[in-house]
């Protein structure tokens, strides 16, 4: 492997590189570790840059084109930097029935950002997402890995205030 850690700003930290190497042993081919490696890279950097994609491609023995294809296929991989908090609002059927419109409105009122936008202060990126498997807690949002269920506009405002 000619790419060594620490000689490129965007490469994985020593710890994370070891994690990826350990995960490679779970599979008969290194290529299979691409999704876990992308998750690790995204956790480290907050997003996945072109340089990171090239680096991971070399690390796992796949082309940059393949990595780019994978990153853009899966909605959860971010190929652009986004706000400090990523607010994902479910607007699919179960949430729609229980008032996700008011949740979209409240998020917009509190952050100034519509789905697809980042707030002016760079703190919040807002997305409209498909069902996140929390239909009994509709309407709901996710911020990172955390789910906020059974929302009302009031409850949501308070949650967003604690983040602001």
């Amino acid at each position, binding site marked *: 492997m000619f790419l060594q850690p620490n000689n490129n700003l965007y490469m994985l930290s020593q710890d994370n590189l070891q994690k990826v190497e350990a995960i490679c042993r779970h599979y008969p081919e290194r*290529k299979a570790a691409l999704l876990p490696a992308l998750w690790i890279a995204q956790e480290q950097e907050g997003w996945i840059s072109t340089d990171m994609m090239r680096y991971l491609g070399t690390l796992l023995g796949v082309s940059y084109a393949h990595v780019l294809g994978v990153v853009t296929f899966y909605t959860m991989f971010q190929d652009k930097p986004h706000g400090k908090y990523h607010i994902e609002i479910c607007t699919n059927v179960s949430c729609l029935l229980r008032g996700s419109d008011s949740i979209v409105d409240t998020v917009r009122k509190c952050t100034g950002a519509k789905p697809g936008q980042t707030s002016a202060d760079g703190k919040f990126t807002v997305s409209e997402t498909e069902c996140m498997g*929390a*239909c009994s807690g509709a309407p709901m949002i996710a911020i990172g890995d955390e789910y906020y269920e059974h929302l009302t506009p009031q409850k949501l405002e308070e949650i967003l205030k604690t983040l602001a």
Partner: protein
Amino acid sequence: MEKYILPEIPGYHTLNVYEEHGGYSALKKALTMTPDQIIDELKKSNLRGRGGACFPTGLKWSFMPKGNTVTKYLAVNGDESEPGTFKDRRIFEFNPHQLIEGILIGCYAMGITAAYVYIRGEYGKWIHMLQKAVDDAYAKGYIGESILGSAFSTNIYLHRGAGAYICGEESALMNSVEGGRGLPRVKPPFPAQNGLWGKPTTINNVETMTNVPLILNKGWEWYSKIGAAKHPGPILVGISGHVNKPGVYEVPTGVLLTELIDTYAGGMLDGKKLKAVIPGGSSTMILRAEQIEGVSMDADSLKAAGSSVGTAGMIVMNEDTDLIRIIARISKFYYHESCGQCTPCREGTGWLFKLLKRFEAGDGRMEDIDLLMDVANNIEGNTICALGDAAAWPVQSMIKRFRDEFEKRVKPIETLAV
């Protein structure tokens, strides 16, 4: 009824409590049996997959080549991304060890040395919960080399998805585990001949695997007597929408849909009237309120009623629901999630969504109703995987059962002022 998939025992998700209540005894029993005996037990129990297709699990396992000479894999499908479905999440949270035990029994019965549990990317928290349980089971010697002193060794790995519904389709899931885009594969070859890395592979749903230890512990006769005769066992039903107590309820199959709404889910929200029910996740055909009378939550009853059991994710809608907006939203979902491989699905889902947006805005044309049907009919059955069908069925059933709703959104023809 006693709960078998989600028992109400505090701390059941921890290894200690699980063991105190007889956990991993089914694995110990399995290790004294031959693989064929286990598969036979499953076949007789009539366990059918809980991922939507209701395929008999024992039969699926029997398709795998016998013996240990060839590397084989197990993939466990925890991608649950179908709108209205949220059951597997409860298993990861409240009963992970029973899932692990089921996976181990499956691996033993099919001679498999590595199992991959594919979990949707949004479930970051629940992946950590399951990982904790897997780590504990490794530490106790239930997973790994020479399990419980036997000659049987296997590993269980978790694989996190990243927000693609299509990866719940078994062959797309395999491509995703292999580190690629989640594009479904053409069948045949079927996974039992050519699956992960070209090796024989079986794919089972998380809930299905969680049923397996029960059958070994209590015997096929006991299991086959629970609920509906042709589709027996406990089933997790997720109820969402306009009900007082939305949630996941464990019931025997064969429970009436009306009972699920009125008793389990606490009745309709604000006492409103029922208008429609999507019985098994957004891809299953919608039923009018009067069509659910006497229909029960099992494969045959729902099939006879003109729908399917799917993943048992019921979406309940009251009389005020704008069904055109609902079907437009469902179509947007399939448009977004189509992987783009097959033309009928890639183009058709876009057509459906755009036409339905027109109706939603009140700009529909009478001939568009037939056009919608035509597009849906041309997607159905003409694609590699079932996503095309899943996109077509809700539209077809909505037009068949609620045509009047579409007609109301047709734009009146303006008469030209002369």
